[in-house]
């Protein structure tokens, strides 16, 4: 055996990296706090830009980990380094030993109820992008009263680029998610009106811009440059939103049946806890800070501890898989040289 690796977090990054390391002949233990592997990917109906079902990626990842020792439903309470060895203490009182650690603790979705002005958790038809994705999975996009929504708004940057929320960074995926979901709403609901309220359209990924164009030209989705300032309901229980159309230079008030909040990404609570207990450096954005943004994006400030995926910054599935593969390569190099 070439060495052992403990991977903390069984989402996309954890599964991909664990699978790759196991393929290389390392002994890999993957610890996941939930009962099922997959992380946020499990909740995703379709992925952008090509609308591949999330389940296809899940199937691929599951095949990758056949040689991995998987422990689910178990939290990592703490870890320490003894000589070159890492000892992880789990919530059920076990200790797991390894020669290297990979943290793939992912992200937590921004808790949209923190933006009180949008009334998530108060107004029944204010939902999040994750809620909508689950509606797509169930093939039932409906209002709380069971009726079909006819006018739907999607609000970008909920909890991202927001000083009041303490998140100055861009979550990067919300714009394209909104475009994808807007198209899917039009396809699912037929003659509905769909509006995206945005600050800037950040369509930097491969085929994103094309999707944005298609949303406008083929699906007639309205893009309004301006954030919603407040949400309320009228006497018919319809949502009333106020916004500013910054291109037209005028305030706007609109009635909607449903409002979808494009919730941003935040450092996970597990990641934050492990950063504090393990003296791992975090950035201003509170995600794990890589040792070097250009040459060591998988390395931490502690020798033998590595990162992959969205515990370091918002990234999409494609980037997460690439990042996980590079982490596996870094770990293989580390174990080879430390023997």
């Amino acid at each position: 055996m070439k060495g052992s690796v403990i991977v903390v977090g069984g989402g996309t990054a954890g599964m991909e990296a664990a699978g790759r390391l196991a393929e290389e002949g390392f002994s890999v233990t993957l610890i996941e706090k939930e009962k099922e592997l997959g992380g946020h990917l499990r909740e995703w109906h379709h992925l952008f830009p090509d609308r591949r079902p999330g389940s296809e990626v899940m199937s691929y990842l599951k095949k990758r980990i056949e040689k991995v020792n998987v422990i689910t439903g178990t939290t990592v309470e703490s870890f320490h380094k003894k000589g070159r060895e890492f000892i992880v203490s789990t919530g059920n009182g076990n200790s797991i030993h390894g020669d290297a650690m990979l943290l793939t603790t992912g992200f937590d979705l921004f808790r949209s109820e923190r933006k009180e002005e949008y009334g998530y958790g108060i107004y029944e038809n204010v939902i999040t992008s994750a809620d909508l994705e689950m509606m797509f999975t169930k093939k039932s996009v409906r209002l709380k009263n069971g009726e079909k929504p006819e006018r739907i708004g999607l609000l970008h940057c909920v909890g991202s680029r927001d000083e009041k929320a303490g998140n100055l960074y861009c979550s990067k995926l919300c714009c394209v998610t909104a475009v994808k979901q807007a198209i899917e709403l039009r396809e699912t609901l037929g003659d509905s009106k769909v509006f995206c309220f945005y600050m800037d359209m950040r369509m930097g990924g491969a085929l994103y811009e094309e999707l944005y164009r298609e949303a406008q030209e083929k699906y007639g989705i309205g893009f309004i440059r301006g954030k919603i300032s407040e949400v309320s309901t009228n006497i018919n229980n319809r949502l009333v939103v106020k916004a500013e159309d910054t291109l037209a230079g005028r305030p706007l008030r609109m009635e909607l049946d449903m409002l979808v909040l494009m919730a941003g990404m935040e450092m996970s609570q597990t990641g934050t806890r492990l950063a504090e207990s393990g003296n791992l450096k975090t950035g201003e954005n509170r995600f794990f800070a890589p040792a070097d943004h250009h040459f060591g994006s998988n390395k931490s400030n502690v020798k033998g501890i590595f990162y992959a995926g969205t515990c370091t910054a918002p990234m999409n599935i494609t980037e997460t898989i690439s990042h996980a593969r590079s982490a596996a390569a870094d770990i293989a190099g580390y174990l080879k040289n430390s023997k």
Partner: protein
Amino acid sequence: MVNEGKKRVWSEYQKEIADDHFFYVRSCIRQSFYPGSEQFFLNFLRNDLGKDVYENPSHTTCTGIGYHGDIVPFSTTQTVVARHFALMKESGYKNIAISCVTSFGIYTEILETWKHFPAELEKTREYLFKATGREFDIPENMAHTSDIIYKFRNEITAKIKYPLINRLTGKPLKVVEHIGCHYAKMFPKHGVGGAEFPRVLSGMAEAWGGEVVDYPERRHCCGFGFRQYLVQANRGYSLSNTVKKFESMKPYEPDLVLTNCPGCNMFMDKWQYTAKEMEGMTFGSNGQSIPVLTYEELAGLVLGYNPWDLGLQYHMVQSEPLLRKMGIEVDSGDKYRTRDGRQMPIPKNLINA
């Protein structure tokens, strides 16, 4: 509307409100417009609850109206407020009870400024000492008087005589609650329930049997907005804001509007008169206007105080329709009579009378 969601928001904005020994500071306008409100507050706390409430005769304006009208500089406002704190220290009090929402906003803004910019605090200490020889302490507890009535709302419920139930229909009265912008919009953590779903007034209304109306322009300004009104040329803007708010609440047919800011009460009351005079507009049910009450006036009503002792007759929109719904019988002959029996002039063209 999911009430659990609101309760979660409220749970995040709980503030400590002192229980006793209040240094009470007055408003510039409230005693003149609604004298019964202050009298109820002082009487209820001192005589009904047995609390110690102290007023210092040397207390002055907080300069809030001048400050928000851009004619009093912030350093002056800070020094004036520091003088009030000095009076409080000299009087042996640590809990300040502020009766005006503009003042409450001024005090919270200053305390937050001093917290984040300690140099401002030191500068203010120096200014006050040089000008008056006084020194001050920062209050241990700061509450708006509506916070204090909110704190004791259940004591009021326990003695309630006229709950907020429509005696004619048996249904809860529909209450529009409107908190002043400067109560919590600048610093949500200083307001009970925060700024988006404030609890201070809705908590009272619900405790006393009413049903709170959530309408689209619930968060909108009452129309005062200081310069919107203080600059004469802007007064049409002030009025149009108030009309916008009332048009939004009109479909719900509210029975009353409940306020905690002297300015809001004045504008939501008096602009209804103006809108009716100018355009014939009314916003209540049956073509009537909507009575606008302070929280102390409402507390007094549910406890069975005489509406004319509470000063309801000094509003532009008269409250008789509300009194009838609550089952409160009044002697209209006493309405404009002083306590010693003298008849005061009777206003003409009263709304809702």
